[in-house]
């Protein structure tokens, strides 16, 4: 694979990852591993988010004010940092979903065009 392919994939993932994390957190607050598992679950295993990209994304989104983090206890009584959506995060999810749907429709129609 060439370097250009790498960049492209990363860019794509960046946008997607935010959307996926937002989506994963809609139902309930989750810790890092929970987010990772949830994404894996809702994408039927297509996306397996590694910590190397997950944590930077979580922190970036926290800085942007979309997520807020709190220390809490995991299901098996371990200390873990839980992320949840803020109001701005929910708005962001709506915007990004809309954007994504637009792009997705555009892309699909573009690819179908002969």
């Amino acid at each position: 694979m060439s370097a250009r392919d790498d960049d492209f994939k990363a860019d794509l993932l960046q946008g997607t990852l935010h959307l996926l994390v937002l989506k994963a957190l809609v139902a309930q607050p989750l810790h890092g591993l929970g987010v990772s598992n949830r994404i894996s679950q809702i994408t039927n295993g297509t996306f397996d988010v590694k910590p190397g990209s997950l944590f930077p994304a979580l922190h970036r989104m926290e800085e942007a004010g979309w997520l807020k983090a709190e220390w809490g206890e995991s299901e098996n009584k371990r200390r873990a940092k839980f992320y949840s959506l803020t109001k701005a995060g929910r708005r962001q999810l709506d915007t990004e979903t809309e954007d994504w749907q637009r792009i997705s429709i555009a892309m699909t129609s573009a690819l179908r065009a002969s």
Partner: protein
Amino acid sequence: MRLLSRVASLLRNTTHKDDVERDLREEVNSYVELLTQEKIRDGITEGAARRAALVELGGAEQVKEQVREIRMGHFLEMRGQDVRYAARTLRKSPVYSITVALVLGLGIGSTALMFTIVNSVLLKGPPFPESDRLVMLWQDLPQEKHVSFSAREFIIWQSETRVFETLSAFTGNGFTITGRGEPELAIGRQVTPSFFQTLRAAPALGRTFLEDEGTAGRDRSVILSHALWRDKFAMRADVIGQPVVMNGEPYTVVGVMPESFLFLDRETKLWVPAALDAATFQQHFDAHMLRVIGRLKPGVSTQQLQAEIDVLGTRVNAPEDDTVRRFYAIDLKEIVAGELRQPLLVLLAAVAFLLLIACANVANLMLARASAREPEMAIRSALGASRRRLVLQLLTEAALLACLGGMLGTGIAIWGLDLLKLFAARNLPELATARLDGTALAFILAATTTAGVLFGLGPAFATSRTSYLATLKGAARTTAASGAERTRQVLVFVEVALASLLLIGCALMMRSFVALVHADPGFRTANVITADAVLMKDRYPDAPALLQFYRESIAAIRALPAIDAAGMVTHLPFGGNSWGNSYEVEQQPAPAGVQYNAQIRPVSPGYLAALEIPLQRGRDVSEQDNEKAPGVAIVNQIFADRFWPNADAVGQRIRYGRSWLSIVGVCGAIKHSRLETDADAEIYVPYPQVDAAVMQFVGRNLNYVVHSASPALVAPQLRATLRQLDPGLVVRVNTMDALINDSIAQPRFRTWLIGIVSAFALALACIGIYGVIAYLVTQRSKEFGIRIALGATRGNILRLVLGRTLRLTAAGVAAGVVAAFFLSRFLGTILFGISVHDALAFIAVPTCLIAVALLAGFLPARRATHVDPVTSLRYE
């Protein structure tokens, strides 16, 4: 609450890096832990599960590093954006930005300047190592306060002290340096050899004095000041060991002091050893002419020092001398600060008030601007900017302004200090070494930061509270805005109160200064020229030689054309010297333990007339009152009233030396060294009748006093006449007015300073009033429009706005006057001739302030009357 937690998280990010770091580490660890648990649940052994989890993590450090980069990058990017945006915003409203920066700069700069001066003069103390152990000793005699030591007292004390590491004495003397270009008169100090050791002052070149240089015959060494080394010796390094002739005697240069050496005054140009066993000191063993400075041993307490003072104070008396003395010590630090303490603290308080006014003003400007920007903020908020971003944005703007103000302030402080040094270094020698040091810079930094945060946070929160919906709808400024307006009115109230307090203080000091300038010294000063010559021992070894020169010179000067009165005195009023002595009054012996002391002035006939000192009774001294004639004296009114309140002083006899003197006249009392202090008891004696031995001491400085209608013409003639009699003579010509003027240089200086500070305060208060009224007018322009439409005249509107201004100002002025009434007593010690509750100051200042405030309110008020009802109603 959320906003607060945001700000808190931001602070945590930047200030508590360690906490953030720990948080991140724990988060990653917890992830590994949870993943391991998950894998164990899937049936893998614990060890294998942990390894697998770590592999999946892909290196804990790399993950953390990536997160750190994100955090930092985001923070920097946002702040960079804020700064760029803030700079752009401020550039777009230059008047506002420049005003705020100027106001802040003035406040910070003048406070830093004053702080630097106070710090260098009051706090830092004298420029010697461990200067807190340096004290000077004095004594109070029954009739005279603050008297120096005699050689006897010093020698006894020095040999018996237990608390002093070293004890040194010094006395002043004039030295005429000859043989190196023009003869020059330099002020020198005779010091006991340990003097420099006591101060712990090291020479720049050569050495200080050795112990045996304090004995007669070995005392011909001299240490030069940096200034003398520069002026007379061209700063040559080989000056050590060179011969120099002073007062006709050969001396050898043994050392040069550094430029920074400064002890009590800047005038001293050289130091020679004081040999206390030499004839001059032995002949006047009980004359109080030595000032004493000592370095206490480490750890000596005030009580221990007092104990020694109590013990030794009784031991220093000469046999058969039963004078009751009270010795005391004063820290050198106190002496250096001394008289300056009160004025400097007053000035510091004044500039602190100025800083407060500046702060209030800036807050006011920012609040006004914040409300003007409500729509902008509302739009940005509606477009998705979080409150935190808006607050940070406003904070950044405030910080940027504070930085500008801080820079301006630093400039003002540096420039102002240079300016002050130029004008005031002579009155305030410590100022020469004053520098804008770390402490002052730290102060500027602290002031700037506080200002930035305070002025940013206030308006920021005010803005973030407002309802954007309402603002956007244009319903605007009902509840939130009126809160801000109240704040602004309180700020103006504080400003006006502080300004009137300052202005009253300023008015008091100015009135006091005017009183000082017009204070009557008791003699004529206009068109009086003085010429001062010092007759040195080498050319005038004894009393006959001195008398010969005196007679020739006074005759030559009287013969000058265009002179209508001339006289001579050894100790000229406001000339910097005085001579006090103890005396006796015939038939009125002093009570046991009491010594009468008075100022003694050897004069020529005609001296009193030349200065127009009124002769109230009897006659002036005459040429017939010579060294062979029976002794006579003239006493001043204070003296006469003390001893003969109901009888005639003329004909009575007094004695200050060996023989009795008949009082032949009574004259008016004059002020001798300061206009602020009361006149002293004085005895005038004919110069030729001064005891030959005493004349050696006090008769060498002849001050000629001449009155002429054309002083400019006479001054050069006076110098020429004296130089003709003795070409080696150093003659200083002055006018009496200039001498008196010099004596009030310090009060003048501080009056100027407080005047400047008060002018700034007044200007700032006016800006504040103008701002509030102008805002009020803008805000209520619709209302004014309606009023005008309904038939209100321009006069009605004008009265309405001005009435508001008056209410705003009057409250502040009233508060200021009340505060001034209670605080003005702190000015008590530096005021002269007026009461601290001087009616004029307390009436004139409030009146002027209200007038100026009305003027400031008039501009916007006039604008209000020009509101066009159609335009203002169209928007409704």
